[in-house]
Each structure stands twice: as C-alpha cells, then as structure tokens.
C-alpha cells in the first residue's frame, strides 16, 4: 500500500521547509498500544442544535450560495464509522475567514462564523448545511490563490487515524496553481479530496448538494 498522504517537505508550500521534520520517523517497536489504538468518545449532549447548520447560527441568513455537504466516514475496509466527531471550518462566500489574522480585504458576514461539527450517524454519515466558500489570496508566492475548500477534522476509532484535511469542489480552475492541493503527487489520490455534485442530495428550490466520503487509514493492528 502506498502512502496517500503528502510529504512533510513540499518546498512550493513555503511554510514547510522550516517545519517539516528532517529526521526519519521511528516505527514503534511493537506498534502503537491500547491508547493509540483507541479514540476519545464524544456524545450528542456535547453538541449544540445548530452546530451542523452553519446558516442558522446567527440572527439572519448568511450571504452566498447555500449548499449541503454530506458523506460517510469509512474505515479502510469500507465499513462505516458511526458516532465519530466531524468538525468543519471555512471562509465565507467572499473568501474571508472570521479569524483575526485573516487580513484579506473582503467583507466579513455578520451572519456567518464558518465553523461547525456533528457526530456521524449509525451509517457513518455526516451532514452540514453551509455556504459555498469563496477562493481567497494568500502570500505563499506572487498571485497565490487557494481553491475554494472546507477544512475537515475527523477522529475515527484510533488516535493514529486522526485526520485533518480539506474538501474541494469539482472543476475548480485553481487546482493547477495550488501548492497545498498539489502537495499530493498522484492525480488519482488528489481526486479523493474533491466532492461530487449530487442531484439526489440537492434540495429543489433550496440548495445544491455535494457528496464527499472520507476514508480513514488502516489501524496498524488490522494490518498484521
């Protein structure tokens, strides 16, 4: 099995050269143990009513194109991972994050924070209602722009499976210019980060729907 993940060092992404580990990773002698092969437990009582609907967290509706993003969290054998925490965060429709250090001169939206979370259901499914994020500039290189994306954080059943990644939208013309998306060499692997427009998820007269499944890495004990 080839490693699907990008390398630590990818010089076109200029934050990597000083932050990428330079010494070889150590393979633990007997593999990870009971702690690393388990995961924290999260419960519905810990989540708020509108945590999974980013369009209803304020008094009014946010500006932009309302969308539904849904999919399943699966393990390496294709089995659903129920009751796992999925967190998302994103820029608003103008390509601006509410984060204090985002200085992009695009408007903030008083009706949009851009953060959500949910637990997967018995079928491993997550579902968010949100706004399609805008592309935005960054200072990695001259005229650098990020393709529209939603950040995802997923737990799974083992701490070693913990995944933070980004979901992209189909056909984005900025893919070819983005060194973060481009940090993955294999075109087939890159495609796993691109959601799919889905007319069955789309709600007529209301919101376009996108499907995106998340497949977590194998747990070491499963390999042996």
């Amino acid at each position, binding site marked *: 099995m080839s490693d699907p993940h990008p390398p630590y060092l*990818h010089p076109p992404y200029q934050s990597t050269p*000083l932050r990428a580990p330079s010494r070889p990773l*150590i393979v633990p002698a007997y593999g990870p143990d009971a702690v690393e092969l388990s995961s924290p437990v999260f419960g519905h009582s810990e989540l708020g009513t509108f945590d999974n609907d980013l369009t209803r967290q304020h008094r009014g509706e946010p500006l932009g194109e309302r969308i539904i993003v849904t999919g399943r969290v699966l393990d390496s054998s294709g089995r659903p991972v129920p009751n796992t925490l999925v967190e998302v965060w994103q820029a608003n429709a103008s390509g601006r994050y509410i984060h204090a250090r985002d200085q992009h001169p695009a408007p903030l939206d008083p009706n949009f*924070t851009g953060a959500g979370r949910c637990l997967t259901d018995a079928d491993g499914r997550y579902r968010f209602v949100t706004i399609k994020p805008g592309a935005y500039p960054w200072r990695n290189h001259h005229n650098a722009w990020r393709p529209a994306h939603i950040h995802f954080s997923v737990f799974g059943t083992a701490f070693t499976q913990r995944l933070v990644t980004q979901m992209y939208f189909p056909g984005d013309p900025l893919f070819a210019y983005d060194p973060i998306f481009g*940090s993955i060499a294999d075109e087939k692997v890159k495609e*796993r980060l691109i959601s799919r427009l889905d007319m069955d998820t789309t709600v007529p007269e209301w919101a376009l729907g996108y499907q995106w499944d998340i497949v977590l*890495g194998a747990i070491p004990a499963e390999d042996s």
Partner: protein
Amino acid sequence: MNETTPSQTVGPFFGYALPYGDGPRVVPEWHPDAIRIHGGVFDGAGEPLPDALLEIWQAGPDGEVPRAVGALTRDGHDFAGFGRCGTDAAGHYWFSTLKPGGPTPYLALLVFARGLLKPVITRIYFPDEPGNAGDPVLSGVPPERRDTLVAVREHDRSYRFDVRLQGEQETVFFAV
C-alpha cells in the same frame, strides 16, 4: 484497496473553530491530583509556532483507556482523557490533566500546524519512571534521541515538554 483520504494542512485559520474553552483542561487546575504539562513548539530556526494545535489522549490514573463522554463539555467529574490546545503568540501550550497509571505512563501527542501537511505524532513520557528503561517504544528510539520524549519535571505538579519540529534537537516522531 487503499482509498485513504489524504491529509491536508490545518492551515493558519483554525483558531476560531477547533480550540474550545476547556480544551486544555482535561481536569480543572484545582483538582487535587492535577498536573500541568506545558511547553513550546519550535521550527527548524528555533522560532516558536503561534499557529500550532496540540492534542493529547491518554489513559486515566487507573491505567485504563477512558470511555467517558465529556471531552468537549467538561463535567468536572468523569475523566475523558482528551485535551486540545492551540499555541499562543509565543508558541506556548498547556494542559491540566492527571498522570496516567500503568507501568510506563505516557501521553499520546498529535501536533498540527500551518506548514505541516500532515500531523506529527509522538509520546510524552515522565521522568524518573522505572518503567521507562524497559518500555519497548522508548527502547526502540536511538539512545541519544530518547530525551526528546521525556518531559522535564519543574516541580511536583508541573512538567515541561517542548516540541522541536526540525533540527539537532528534533523531537522523535513516530510512523504509525
């Protein structure tokens, strides 16, 4: 078939979304057995990272993996074993937690940051633990690098553990 979804960086703008109020407070600081684990995260030039996110996951004082809900909303009673802390402007993080039980106590630690296209995973061991010498994972690390995995005791209730992502004193990270 391996269709694993690849990792992408957490980026610089997670600060309003992932950290939460009691994230670093696995137990409240006033808990009689609370210990503090804290330190800095540094890049290859020795500069602190103001945009790193650290997560710990650990056994309880009984040595068992916690199965209690309550990592997001601390109830002040059950031990959920998970903590999350973003670094501050000086690259500093902290956790208030309980020392795990078992022969070789350690905390599993994940570090995410802008510039890390995937997280690094490591362990925080405790000093002066007789079990460390026979621990298979620690023993599998070259002797000259083992110290990077052992927290430094400041006083009975406080330990310092710095993370160096790159360079001479680079923290040992695991491939799992």
